[in-house]
């Protein structure tokens, strides 16, 4: 009698898998099954609002780390991290010249993990500026701005400017000596423009000196106007990567 191995009945793992991923609630949230087959893996990307920025398949050179060093993605990740930590900081911060500095001090000393959140926000902001610059260098030296990606490079330059402005407007908010004088120096640079300099400085800081008006203007720009603009341009930037045929690669 030849002993052939008979298939065993479903084990505990299979039962659990079936219960977890083949039920009414799971399939109401994720339309595809668990991504363990090529079909489901592609569906996982295509049917997810966050992941569908990706194509379902990409050229294998594009997953080499040295092709991009993940710089663009990491810039975006910094933006996300800054949004999360920034929202947390907003809980404790009031953009009023009498309160702002004390709020930051209290955040550092009295709020559990307040110092950590502020530090994270600061270092991620510096890192984002660096990462965006490095991303621009990567795109340049790999010739990735060439047709048909010309316009996306322009969007990228706009995003670089928005990143610098985001960082600059945030610099004033702690309302300490470092903030006040850095913004005074920075806005004086803007005020040096030949014809419209004085006017543009006036509009930027809402007065002749960096004071209460400047603080509320920078705060509003920093927490809503510039992030919204950046988000819009980022959407265009990511969308255009897909539309222009993915990452650049040799013809």
């Amino acid at each position: 009698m030849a002993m052939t191995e008979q298939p065993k009945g479903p084990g505990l793992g299979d039962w659990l898998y079936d219960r977890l991923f083949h039920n009414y609630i799971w399939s109401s949230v994720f339309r595809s099954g668990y991504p363990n087959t090529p079909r489901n893996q592609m569906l996982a990307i295509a049917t997810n609002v966050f992941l569908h920025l990706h194509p379902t398949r990409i050229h294998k050179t594009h997953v080499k780390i040295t092709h991009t060093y993940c710089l663009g993605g990491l810039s975006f990740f910094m933006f996300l991290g800054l949004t999360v930590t920034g929202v947390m900081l907003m809980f404790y911060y009031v953009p009023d010249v009498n309160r702002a500095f004390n709020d930051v001090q209290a955040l550092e000393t009295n709020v559990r993990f307040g110092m950590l959140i502020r530090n994270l926000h600061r270092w991620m902001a510096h890192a984002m500026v660096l990462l965006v610059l490095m991303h621009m260098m990567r795109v340049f030296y790999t010739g990735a701005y060439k047709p048909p990606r010309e316009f996306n490079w322009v969007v990228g330059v706009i995003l670089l400017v928005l990143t610098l402005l985001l960082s600059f407007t945030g610099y004033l908010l702690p309302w300490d000596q470092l903030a006040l004088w850095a913004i005074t120096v920075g806005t004086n640079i803007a005020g040096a423009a030949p014809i419209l300099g004085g006017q543009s400085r006036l509009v930027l800081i809402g007065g002749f000196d960096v004071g209460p008006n400047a603080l509320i203007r920078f705060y509003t720009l920093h927490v809503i106007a510039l992030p919204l603009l950046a988000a819009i341009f980022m959407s265009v930037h990511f969308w255009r990567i897909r539309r222009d045929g993915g990452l650049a690669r040799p013809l």
Partner: protein
Amino acid sequence: MAVAAPAGSARESVRLKRERDQEVLVWPDLVFIEFIAAVLFTITFVVLATFFNAPLLNKANPNVTPNPSKAPWYFMNLQELLLHMDKGLAGVIVPTMLLIGLMVIPYVDRDNEGQGTWFGTVNSVRITFFSFVWSGVWISWLILWDNGSQVLVYQHLPQLWGSNERLKWLGDKNPFKGWPVEGVLKPIWDFIFLPNRLAIRDTWHWSLPVPFQPGAGPHDGRLDWPKDFLQIPIPLNGTWGWNWGGKPNWMPGWLQHVYPYNSDFSLPAITAEWIVPIIAMVGLPALMIYILHKIGWAHTVRDAMIALFTGFIVVYFALTIVGAAFRGKGQALVPPYRVPNLEKDPSILRQVEPPPSHLVLADPRVVVRARDG
């Protein structure tokens, strides 16, 4: 036609099939990398934020100016640039031109050759290297020159070489004394050894006999720098050339508002603040591209773009580093260890006060810690 079509589409499908073989699935291959990168960066930043605190100095006080006051680091390149040219040129015109320049790169360089690979064209690596060295050397030299650092060399080189006699002319104030063309050679000699850019305006001096000076009215028969160049009327203001009768009413209103028709300009100041910096900023990159072309490295627009972009990056970071680490009190050029540390300077030392009572939360230990600093 009817025969060719299936053959073409067959070739097409073979090509597509080969393309497919080169592809990987985004889930898991790319999503996994993104996930790992995100985790690594999160850990790095949590560790960084645990050990390095964000700075917080005294409360903002408009009456106490820190010396030096510095912009955020990514604008310190502009702040450094302000020390070397007119404020409007450095603070607004140059950055605007640079941003426009960056945006037009893909519209100027449209050739697809070498795209999608690092340094995809033949000479791109050596062009990058050349531009790196060229820009680094020139920007360092320009900063040192505008600081007057080379004066030390002129003063000490003759001594360093042992014999004062051999290189005496180098430190000599006027080696052309008594020469027939002294009046021309001496200003050129002085110009070469000018201590810095502003000396063109302030200390450079020459006087040439020019008997005929059109439109100058009664004059002393000589043209003196800088005396005779300090108040040159703006063109079209009615004092020279055609007389437009004062206000140029033929101009549109907005132009009359903008055009400084009733003022003079100082040529020495314009030279020092605008002309010399612009010559450096336009001339040196142009010269670099000319050299790269002449030695046969740069052939295409892409090559020129690589040279220019590398120069931009080098100058951007060089100015940032000099502005951040080499500018001390009064924006003087000093070694990094003499740059004042804002957090240790007594005049702006952070005061550790207990926060106001309405902000103190209930936990008594926290209050004690806040008071102890």
